[in-house]
């Protein structure tokens, strides 16, 4: 008998197999790796130089301190937004590779459980995020004296919440693509940009009209960006915001998991899993 004894329940070996599959893919294609670093680097350079320019103008007009804080908030928000976007792309792009290579049927007839596939995609989201953001955060430190890592535990709290949000969005998109085919692929790139204005990335929630503030506070990233501003401007760690974000994230993740399973079942009923494509 060639098979291992146990095929019931959650298997870390099968999660490991899928992570290995995605790492093989990354290793086989340097443009895929370069792309992970390229866009965050371009973003940080663009906004970092803008911050430098504004600071120089502020120095000349005697408001340097205020503008330095504003600049730090801008670059910090930019890096955290990119962390959210990259983590979601890391999840969604790994999933999309299965669709592009028409391999999803092969996977769904193995003992791989949906939760194991999701766990592998979550792992890859962290791997791709690390590959992209670690060098770029070092670039921000070197070129613009913005030390993201100096935030310490606060940064961990921010990242945990942003990554959980990205996984919830990634799961829902994966379900939609399974159900509707690659016609739904564009969502992987665009969904977060719909969230962006309401998540108050670059401005406080108070900037929004009061009726939109209600919507903003339903989005976990809003709490993170408010927390970032509190940390940089007032040097305060808002644990309350992080815990509220965590609670919403856990609810979102559960809902997204349910949504993924329901859409997978709907794809089985529609018979679309055997001929995945456009």
């Amino acid at each position: 008998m060639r098979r291992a004894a146990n095929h019931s329940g959650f298997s870390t070996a099968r999660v490991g197999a899928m992570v290995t599959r995605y790492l093989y893919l990354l290793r086989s294609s340097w443009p895929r790796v370069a792309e992970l670093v390229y866009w965050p680097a371009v973003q940080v350079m663009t906004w970092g130089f803008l911050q430098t320019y504004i600071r120089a103008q502020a120095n000349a007009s005697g408001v340097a301190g205020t503008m330095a804080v504003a600049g730090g908030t801008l670059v910090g928000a930019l890096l955290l937004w990119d962390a959210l976007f990259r983590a979601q792309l890391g999840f969604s792009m790994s999933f999309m590779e299965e669709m592009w290579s028409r391999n999803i049927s092969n996977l769904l007839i193995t003992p791989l459980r949906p939760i194991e596939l999701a766990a592998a995609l979550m792992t890859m989201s962290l791997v791709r995020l690390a590959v992209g953001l670690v060098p770029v955060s070092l670039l921000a430190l070197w070129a613009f004296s913005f030390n993201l890592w100096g935030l310490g535990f606060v940064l961990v709290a921010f990242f945990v919440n942003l990554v959980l949000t990205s996984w919830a969005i990634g799961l829902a998109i994966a379900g939609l693509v399974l159900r509707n085919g690659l016609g739904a692929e564009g969502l992987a790139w665009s969904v977060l940009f719909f969230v962006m204005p309401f998540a108050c990335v670059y401005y406080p929630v108070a900037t929004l009209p009061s009726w939109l503030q209600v919507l903003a506070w339903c989005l976990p990233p809003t709490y993170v960006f408010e927390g970032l501003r509190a940390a940089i401007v007032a040097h305060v760690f808002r644990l309350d915001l992080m815990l509220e974000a965590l609670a919403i994230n856990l609810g979102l993740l559960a809902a997204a998991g349910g949504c993924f399973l329901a859409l997978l079942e709907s794809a089985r009923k529609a018979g679309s899993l055997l001929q995945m494509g456009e």
Partner: protein
Amino acid sequence: MPALAIEARQLAKRFGATMAVDAISFSIEAGSVTGLLGGNGAGKTTTIGMIMGLIAPSSGAVRVLGVDMARERYRVLARMNFESPYVDMPHRLTVRQNLRVFGRLYGVADLSRRIDELSEGLALTPFLDRAVGSLSAGQKTRVALAKALINDPEVLLLDEPTASLDPDTADWVRGRLETFRRARGATILLASHNMAEVERLCDRVIMLKQGAVVDDGAPEALIARYGRANLEEVFLDVARGIGPERPA
């Protein structure tokens, strides 16, 4: 009484207004090779999809190795496998990498040895470390077959396994399937348009038309029943609605 590998009971699938599979019932004995024959749209691929649990039946049930595929498929998926030229494997991964990944998903023990065995048996060694996307159609079919055999399945489902292959390569693949069946005693269900292939490989043929089973029997028995020289002529009779010469 021989054990049953696959049992379909009143299995039906409707897609909107189209009845793709219309309440078909059949049983397949363990260790047999059965062909699903039918023209385009006869319901072959849908039937295979339901047997694998990739398509949810509208009604009816299918059991594989005694397990209800609608409710408990994870109990049996490690004991079956599937190959189709219409389902790809990751192109950028090498043959060896693909086999490693699938071997680990199936929980294959002593995976390196199994990959070596398959490489030898299916003549993969010369391109084992090449990307799947760089291979010819015939080589890709051999790799897909290696993937389908990686877990030494008790039930193997094949959807037109030699489609688009040249006659020599197709003959070679059929030979390997015969070898596997003899060595493993596996149950094979084969959907095909190739009558010569079905005559050579199958102990039994289930003929489908518009989602319904229209005939069922050993190839030679069907040929005799329809008074024809070969299975291709039987297929044409069935497709054109011409019944058998003698009652079954």
